[in-house]
């Protein structure tokens, strides 16, 4: 992409659908395939269309699908794909039980962008930095996809295939599920960015389970430092099963950056990002542990 970006004020013409039910959307996706793109909040798609990066013949708008707007706790967290980031931020169950998701909603864009953008849209954009994907992956999130061939539920880790690419096959993401865990979880998320509306330089989410001063399980997820959001599994291995000490956490910090492939772009340099990965990972581990302590564990 060259700079300065060439933007055209007027969007190209397109056919427009706005069904009110998922069942009415599926045949449209089935018949039109990649001639149609899905419009949720529009904060990214309309931008791409102005830059002529994408030129869909048709847009399928989800704005009438009120059935996809919800956040509820029911044997785990169930989030409708059209839930706005503001709604995530204002949800009590999210703030109390899944603070890393609350953190991500707080760090996300600006108030206007949060009012418009949706959790599903952020996931389906499959950007290397997807703010909502990072903590959801650290929570073993699952995605419910509905298409002409039926319904399937997949792990969020298997959804993105690369920058801007995912496994959707004429399907629509309807629900995000965070499975219930027996043990209490400490979670935290942080995003390094230049300005409020900016994408991440580096982002990191941690989920940790501690039993008798040992780390029973841990997830460390990094955003914006590879072609997709990923789990730093070698770093996780260092901590899993070990006593929680500063030395172990220090080692985790060193390992976390080894698995990343950050680039130099307009937002940051590869070197700075590499340095920050370890620092953020350590900070998020300490924050997660602190949150566990605050809840009495």
């Amino acid at each position, binding site marked *: 992409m060259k700079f300065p970006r060439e933007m055209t004020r007027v969007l190209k013409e397109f*056919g427009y659908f706005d069904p009110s039910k998922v069942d*009415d959307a599926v045949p449209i996706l089935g018949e039109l395939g990649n001639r149609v793109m899905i419009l949720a909040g529009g904060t990214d798609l309309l931008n791409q269309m*102005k830059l002529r990066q994408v030129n869909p013949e048709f847009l399928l708008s989800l704005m009438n699908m009120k059935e996809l707007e919800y956040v509820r706790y029911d044997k785990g967290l169930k989030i409708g794909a059209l839930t706005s980031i503001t709604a995530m931020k204002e949800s009590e169950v999210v703030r109390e039980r899944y603070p890393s998701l609350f953190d991500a909603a707080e760090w996300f*864009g600006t*108030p206007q*962008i949060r009012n418009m953008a949706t959790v599903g849209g952020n996931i389906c954009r499959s950007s290397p930095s997807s703010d909502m994907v990072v903590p959801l992956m650290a929570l073993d999130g699952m995605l419910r996809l509905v298409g002409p061939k039926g319904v399937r539920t997949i792990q969020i880790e298997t959804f993105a295939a690369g920058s801007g690419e995912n496994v959707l096959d004429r399907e629509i993401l309807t629900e995000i599920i965070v499975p219930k865990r027996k043990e209490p979880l400490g979670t935290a998320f942080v995003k390094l960015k230049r300005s409020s509306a900016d994408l991440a330089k580096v982002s990191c989410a941690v989920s940790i389970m501690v039993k008798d001063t040992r780390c029973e399980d841990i997830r460390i997820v990094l955003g914006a430092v590879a072609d997709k959001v990923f789990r730093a599994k070698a770093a996780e291995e260092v901590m899993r099963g070990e006593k929680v000490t500063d030395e172990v956490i220090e080692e985790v910090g060193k390992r976390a950056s080894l698995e990343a492939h950050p680039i130099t772009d307009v937002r940051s340099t590869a070197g700075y990002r590499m340095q920050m990965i370890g620092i953020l990972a350590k900070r998020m581990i300490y924050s997660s542990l602190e949150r566990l302590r605050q809840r009495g564990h």
Partner: protein
Amino acid sequence: MMEATNKKMIHMVINGQDREIEVHPNELLLDVLRERLGLTGTKIGCEAGDCGACTVLIDGKPTLSCLTLAIECHGKEILTIEGVGDAEKAELHPLQKAFVEHYGVQCGFCTPAMILTAKALLDKNPNPNENEIREAINGVICRCTGYVQIVESIQTAAKELREANE
């Protein structure tokens, strides 16, 4: 399968007035407001969602009109800067008065967005602290003021509105 729409008569309530207008799907709300309805108080800035100059309130929520399709505003209530205060009676809203008196306006380009965003904040939270004000306006960029006087203007207006409501 449904038929695709390529033209729709939409109905919106803009600044308290019922408006009906036929739009193509590719028309942006920003352009419909400015070009077709003559409401040029909403500004064209970056057109990419970064500057906030195009902010309007849709159903009370600050929204970027440069990234909103007009066709998606069917049935919605929209407030632009022209709807704040009473132009016919030449009465300023306390926010507008405060911005004038406390130097919250220099070039004025961000001002419509700042005022609308501040109004949305005060409608929800009549007594915000400085942090809450700064958080609420962090989606609107100002190149002139350094934000200090904008925050002071909003604090002044908030106080005046609280006292008026007691």
